[in-house]
């Protein structure tokens, strides 16, 4: 019931690897870590959600904040490797249209 956040800060490419649950309790910590990374001019921020077993609207809120921040600082945000459950929330809320999400479409929905 916690969220582990690992940041690999490699100059302009920043990879954030998450594992655990994103909810009202853990989202503030994620926001605190993720936002400053997107506030670097032209930074490319990649968030790996493969290890995220649970997420709700509090997580969506964090990624929306981060996206807004990328527009302000001319940086980039990409979400990668999320599971079907997590992807579904982005889909229901229409956020797949505006947030850059890398998915393996051949796997999705095929189970």
């Amino acid at each position, binding site marked *: 019931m916690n969220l582990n956040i690992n940041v690999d800060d490699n100059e302009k490419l920043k990879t954030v690897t998450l594992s655990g649950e994103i909810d*009202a309790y853990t989202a503030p910590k994620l926001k605190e870590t993720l936002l400053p990374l997107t506030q670097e001019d032209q930074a490319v921020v990649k968030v790996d959600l493969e290890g995220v077993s649970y997420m*709700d*609207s509090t997580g969506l809120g964090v990624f929306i904040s981060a996206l807004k921040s990328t527009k302000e600082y001319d940086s980039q945000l990409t979400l990668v490797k999320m599971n*079907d459950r997590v992807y*579904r929330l982005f889909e*229901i*809320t229409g956020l797949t249209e*505006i947030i850059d999400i890398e998915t393996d479409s051949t796997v999705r*929905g095929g189970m």
Partner: protein
Amino acid sequence: MTETFDFIEIKIPAKAEYVGVVRLSISGIANRMGFAYDDIEDLKVGISEAITNAVKHAYNETGEGEITLGFGVYEDRLEVMVADHGGSFDLKKVKEDTGPYQEEDSIEELREGGFGLFLIDALMDKVEINNKYGVIVLMTKYLHENEVGFNDDQISTTQ
């Protein structure tokens, strides 16, 4: 005709750190009832959103107060009640701020916290909100309604 059902009540402090504990509880109850994996995940999100709302709006995150959760276990459905006893939030405003992102909306207008109630509505079969004495959210999920699971949402475009 009276329906028999089991009732489970849980009281938690109105603090975000207990949302995960309740998720484990509802997961156990729903699993015992025979809900499918995806429905259990929906229930977890639904109840978490309701508790997050209660913690945020009713108590202004001061961490005071309690949230009462009730689970009505019926033959064909699970009814979940989330009640904060105390403050209340402006329901009309919450509803106005609720809804999916539309393509014509600009990113600046995106609501960072407005998806909670929308998700409850999308993931549960029935949602009622009583705003009279504090806020009570009552949500219902039926058993066997979506036996195929959530993937059919993506495939059945012809319906």
